[in-house]
């Protein structure tokens, strides 16, 4: 039973990180593409655009980092494994 829980924790961590990274990766790609488009059209707006881009990327990236935290909790601080 104990080892079964550990195996499932590891599988859960791997699944959380791998599938949790898909959505933010696609979203960051779209955000950067849109920012590139804006910079190409209006090169003088690069300052505010890149700042907003960084903040937005940080927001999007949070989702992936939540998945990483879940994975780390499963691996290192799992409450069900003694």
């Amino acid at each position, binding site marked *: 039973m104990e080892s079964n829980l550990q195996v499932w924790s590891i599988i859960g961590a791997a699944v959380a990180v791998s599938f949790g990274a898909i959505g933010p990766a696609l979203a960051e790609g779209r955000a950067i593409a849109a920012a590139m488009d804006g910079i190409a059209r209006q090169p003088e707006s690069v300052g505010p655009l890149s*700042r907003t881009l*960084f903040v937005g990327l940080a927001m999007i990236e949070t989702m992936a*980092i939540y998945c990483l935290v879940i994975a*780390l909790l499963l691996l290192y*601080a799992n409450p069900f494994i003694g």
Partner: protein
Amino acid sequence: MAAGPLAPEILFHLGPVPISRPVVTTWGIMAVLVVGAWLGLRRARVHGGTFQTVLEIVVEALATQIRDVIQREPWPYLPLLGTLFIFLVFANLSAIVPGMKPPTGHIETPAVLAVIVFLSVHYFGVRARGLLAYLRRYTRPNPLLLPLNLLSEITRTFSLMVRLFGNMMSHELVIAIVAYMAGLLLPIPFMALGILIGLIQAYIFTVLATVFIAAGIGGGESE
């Protein structure tokens, strides 16, 4: 099994208080910053020397960035945000000194920094708008959204903490794994990437703190 990245690394005990490695590193960074600023501004003159000019350029650049975000005079907010940025840069880049680990790679330091940002948002908000006007902000645009606004206060502080911690810690973990598997030369590009990640995370943390404070004090002088 080796201790995970969530477990603190206790170096020594000061009486009953355990002192962990991130705390010692933080003390070291604080000492370096204080001594550096003291040396640079010990004899501050109008036409200062090289080091004083460098410090002035840093302060001016930070003030310009903050002014761009919050659209008003940056000087009340510069001490907090500028110190935050400079400390984070030093903390995130302390990994390039052999034998040192970034204190932001453990959860305590980002947690404390996020709490400081959380409290200072309210402090600056109340000071700029008055208590009632500041509290009324939570009922905008509709009083039905009050629970969601309160929830977002907590989640954004949490995500501020977890973003910095997750990035720095996962990078440390990646380097450890690569060094374990590939040995000598392969980790070097990853470590170079770590410099970039450290700078970007310091920038993002500071910009987000600035944006939160700007949202707290209300947009522009027109309000």
